[in-house]
């Protein structure tokens, strides 16, 4: 596994940022429409949380008021009754508040847990419906990024909408209260908060630009490490350790320098926004209130809750500014996720589709033509038949339509004309997975899942016994491999990182043979192998084809000399068909392909 690990959600790229600013309203609306369905199932919870939040805010206002009564009345007048009432009330209020907070936390965090999982499940469902050709064209790292980082980021913003909103309510209430008590206080407060907000927002914007550069350089540094880690042998063989070390110092140093500059740039603003301005505001208001108390215009009791409230002002604004930034990032994530959700899904089963319980291996491709919109036909009038015991090869230069033909049989696409019949049933009428489960498919490269050798085989036949797995592995010549595994079938294969391509390919063949299919489709099974492994794998395939129907796409012409039928495709048309010796007489393209294939042997001989 070498994909780039993303430590923090990376910030927007320059283009993305520009795009979002330019289409802000549309993007925001789109993001809103996208998010709504995920909130709907939690509507009741959200309403509950909203009510609880408002109640908590109001309850939070009460305890400082008890101070007023104590200081102004109970203490000077030695009013025991009032003092004891206040204590009882205080106990009750705090108890009630805490109860609400606990309930609210639990309910809301449930939403917090659910939303990213729901988003991910939705994306997952769609990605599973991708067509085979879309899958091949999609970078894996990017899709995974959408599924993980983007969903998390969107969820993160969604569940911060509500707290931010309640913060806003709290802010308004405090400001309203202070204005009601004395408008001058609000004036003082605004005098400090407005420049604070502007400064904070401004510095945040600048620091975002700095962050982008910093993260970019950190990425360069890390990708340098990745490159070295992927080529240790090369570095050592070239005695390039010093060069690599030097490159690393340069890269790490560059990233570090930018980090230091950015940090030092932020220091004075941090000092001002985090400490100086809030302290200055606090002192000014305190001084003003004291002046009023000294002059008898206000009691000390009134002053106490006021200062408490005003201290709660800072955080809401910080939150709102940050929230705005989150929203911007979220909109990009939504865009990206939408792009994936808009990809056209593959063909869906018809209602009442035929569920196959067995496949005998009779396949008829009847005169199919396939053409993507606005392109030349990828296949025109191609026919072929397969029956048990018959081996058919499809060859041709790249772009001839070999894979397209296989994709039609697997119903990744449906032909514009003609039909593909499986045991006499049109593939369009099949429940496609019931068909695919009963045939064997070997791809150009075998993908191994994380997990044990057994898991990887049982993937196609979950109910297979250990004996079955053992037999099938030995039949593809992996007997010694299996014996060499310390844990046998339970050996963790680590996604195949330590296996050779030949071993992987043989595991792929074993996997396809596990359910003893009558039909085998091999899509360039040996193209990734070297000569020695190729002949070993081909020997396995030839030995095991027996009474199965075999269809093999290949460009290794030496491997198919004794096939029953070879179909030569060129630009979507059949340029020739027959056995090897027939084609050598009748098909000039075949002769040409063979010559270029043998060319090098003659050269070196």
């Amino acid at each position: 596994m070498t994909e780039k690990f993303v430590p923090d959600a990376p910030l927007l790229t320059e283009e993305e940022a520009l795009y979002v600013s330019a289409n802000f309203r549309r993007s925001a609306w789109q993001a809103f429409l996208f998010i709504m369905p995920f909130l709907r199932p939690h509507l009741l919870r959200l309403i509950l949380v909203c009510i609880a939040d408002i109640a908590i805010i109001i309850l939070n206002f009460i305890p400082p008021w008890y101070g007023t009564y104590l200081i102004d009345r109970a203490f000077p007048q030695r009013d025991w009754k009032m003092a004891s009432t206040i204590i009882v009330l205080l106990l009750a209020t705090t108890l009630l508040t805490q109860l609400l907070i606990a309930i609210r936390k639990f309910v809301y965090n449930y939403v917090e847990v659910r939303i990213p999982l729901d988003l991910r499940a939705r994306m997952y469902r769609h990605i599973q419906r991708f067509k085979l050709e879309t899958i091949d064209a999609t970078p894996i790292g990017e899709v995974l990024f959408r599924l993980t980082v983007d969903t998390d980021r969107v969820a993160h913003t969604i569940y911060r909408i509500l707290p931010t909103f309640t913060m806003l309510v709290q802010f308004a209430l405090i400001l309203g209260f202070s204005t009601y008590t004395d408008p001058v206080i609000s004036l003082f407060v605004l005098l400090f908060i407005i420049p604070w907000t502007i400064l904070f927002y401004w510095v945040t914007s600048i620091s975002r630009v700095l962050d982008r550069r910093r993260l970019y350089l950190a990425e360069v540094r890390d990708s340098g490490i990745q490159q070295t880690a992927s080529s240790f042998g090369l570095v050592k063989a070239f005695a390039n350790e010093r060069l690599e070390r030097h490159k690393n110092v340069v890269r790490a140093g560059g990233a570090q320098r930018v980090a230091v500059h950015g940090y030092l740039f932020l220091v004075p603003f941090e000092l001002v926004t985090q400490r100086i301005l809030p302290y200055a505001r606090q002192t000014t208001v305190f001084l003003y209130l004291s002046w009023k108390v000294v002059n008898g215009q206000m009691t000390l009791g009134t002053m106490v809750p006021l200062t408490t409230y005003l201290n709660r002002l800072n955080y809401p604004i910080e939150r709102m500014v940050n929230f705005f930034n989150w929203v911007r990032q979220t909109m990009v994530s939504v865009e990206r996720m939408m792009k994936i959700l808009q990809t056209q899904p593959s063909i869906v089963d018809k209602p009442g589709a035929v569920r196959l319980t067995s496949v005998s291996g009779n396949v008829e491709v009847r005169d199919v033509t396939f053409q993507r919109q606005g392109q030349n036909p990828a296949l025109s009038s191609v026919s072929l038949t397969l029956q048990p015991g018959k081996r058919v090869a499809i060859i041709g230069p790249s772009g001839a339509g070999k894979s397209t033909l296989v994709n039609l049989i697997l119903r990744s696409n449906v032909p514009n004309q003609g039909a593909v019949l499986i045991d006499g049933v049109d593939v369009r009428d099949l429940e496609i997975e019931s068909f695919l489960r009963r045939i064997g498919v070997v791809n150009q490269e075998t993908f191994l899942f994380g997990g044990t050798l057994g898991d990887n085989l049982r993937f196609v036949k979950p109910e297979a016994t250990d004996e079955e797995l053992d037999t099938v592995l030995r039949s593809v010549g992996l007997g010694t491999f299996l014996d060499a595994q310390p844990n046998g079938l339970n050996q963790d294969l680590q996604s195949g990182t330590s296996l050779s391509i030949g071993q992987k390919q043989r595991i792929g063949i074993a996997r396809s043979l596990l359910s003893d299919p009558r039909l085998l489709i091999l899509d360039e099974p040996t193209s990734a192998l070297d000569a020695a492994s190729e002949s070993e794998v081909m020997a396995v395939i030839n030995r095991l084809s027996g009474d199965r129907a075999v269809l093999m796409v290949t460009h290794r012409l030496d491997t198919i000399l004794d096939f029953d039928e070879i179909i030569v495709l060129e630009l979507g048309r059949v340029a020739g068909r027959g056995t090897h010796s027939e084609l050598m007489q009748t098909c000039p393209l075949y002769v040409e392909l063979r010559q270029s294939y043998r060319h090098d042997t003659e050269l070196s001989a």
Partner: protein
Amino acid sequence: MPDVASKDFRSTRELIRVLGRVWQYVRPYRSKFFLAILFVLLTVPLTQLAIFLTRDVANKALLAVGSTVDQRWETVLGLIGLQALFLFASSLFWIIREVLEWYCSMRASYDMRLAYFRHLLRLPLEVLRQRPPGEHLYRATIDFYSTTNSTGYFQVSNQDGYDPGVAGVIVRLVPMLIETLYSLAWGAALLSLIDPVLGIGLLVYAIPYNIAAWSMYSKIRQTQFLLRAGAESEAAVLRDSVAGMRTIKSHGRTALQRLKFITSSIAMRRENIRLLGQVVFSEHVVLWFVRWVFNCSVYIYMTLQVMHGRATIGDWLATMLLVAALVKSDLEGIDPDAPTASKPMEKVVQIIQRMRVDLVPAQRIMETLDQKPQLGDRDNPVVLNGLQGSITFEDVGLSYIEGNPALRGVSIEIQPGEFVGFVGPSGAGKSSILSVALRLYLPDQGRVLIDAHDLNDVALDSYLNQVGVVPQSTYLYDGTIADNIRFGKPRATDAEVEAVVKLTGMEDFVSRQPEGLETMIGEGSKISGGEKQRIGIARALIRDPKILILDEATANLDPISEASLSQVIAKVRQGRTVLCVAHRLKTVVGCDKIVVLKDGLIEAIGTHESLLNKSTTYRDLWIEQSNTPISSQAGSGVEGGSND
């Protein structure tokens, strides 16, 4: 991926050992580190004294009935002035401390980074190959990030923070712990000034609270580990689902895979909710209750004291403010990540728990740094200048795994300028011979002589700089085509690069690129296997090697590219010793000497013709690779016919 989830420190001794190792990197910056702690010691009393002054503001000015308005106002001005002074001074100290700590931690982590990378390249190849590249990447990058980010960094860039790096586990957490304990001590002292009962009460309260917190957080942390393990397994299912989509779909197993995903997802949800239940229960039920009892007791006690006339209103006010600064208030806001959430009393346990978590990556880093590096050159090594190119293997034996030798006593003599092929079935020891010739591995027995010098006595760099290696598949570094070629000789001039491009027949390919030699390429770029191998050969040739080593250099290529690369090799072999390992015999048919290896032993040495008679392995391979006799004869017969 390293097993992040399940690791934890069981033994305190190991914890202290890792801390000690990290300290070695912090040590050079210790003056700044101690200065930062000094500023912590200054900041804490200032902020608490500022709060404490409120008592005098209330008692001596606001409630002083005896004095005139002007006198009272003067007192207010004086006290608030003093308070402001304390606050601003503490702000200044705070920022200085932040900068010192950040700088110190960042520098120490940076030094660790460089040391790590340096050490990594010094490790023997067999050690390096024990871990897949992905894990190397993880250990060399993610492990160096600090996880302490959320505990009070700069607010402005709190999106991802200015990471102080892994050294933060000491530089950041130790002052924080000192600050916390010191605040509690000052708090207790100031409260004692108001009423000794309060000071003692605070210290007494610390005991049950911290015991409860410790047990609660330990449980939560266990759930968190489980959760991380769950997240990793969910990520693995996702990775499999996306990367293996073609396999899943073509086997008709989408439903099964979705079931796996949903299962892991539901498991995650269950764990998450469990964690949530634990957090809410411990934070908002148990710990809250202990806190609530304390907070209410203080409130009631002080109110009664004032009512009895044993304390002033100023005392009451200052107590409330001080306690609120030391212990989490019950009147906490709604926001889950409000910065005011934790106060010194709550932090003690949190910091220690955090330290244990943060030391896990540090432990992994140290694990690598403690691995024994490859043996370097011996003292006064022989510097090889003007290599001739003769190589002699004398009874060389090598085993990667004990008791399973890859080479068992191989002796070959190679003259300068010879073209030597190595063939044999997989596992015969072909690549091991090359590894020994490059001193990537040291032989267990025998020796390798280069121009009559024992390879172990040679200054390795001086030798390798005259050797060119072309592996089976060329790794492309991110950079321009020229950069990639210059990997072989970093100081090569443009003319040299162009010459080697011409030599390897890459001109067409280069001229087709939008920016010629300056076109950016990398592992992700779409370059055919043939062109990649040409870059690999150019990289080897630019150092004008006396010895050229081809390790299956053409094995992965299609026949046409293979043929044209063979031509390039034929052209450049003049005046160089060439060692060529190949699976396909046709690659080595023209060699001066072919070495047939089997099970780590030499079966035969000779030319193609002589080997066909001498070596059964060679003959078998030859027959196997010229296809099944019957059909290939039929095929070539017809071919011959059509060619005529």
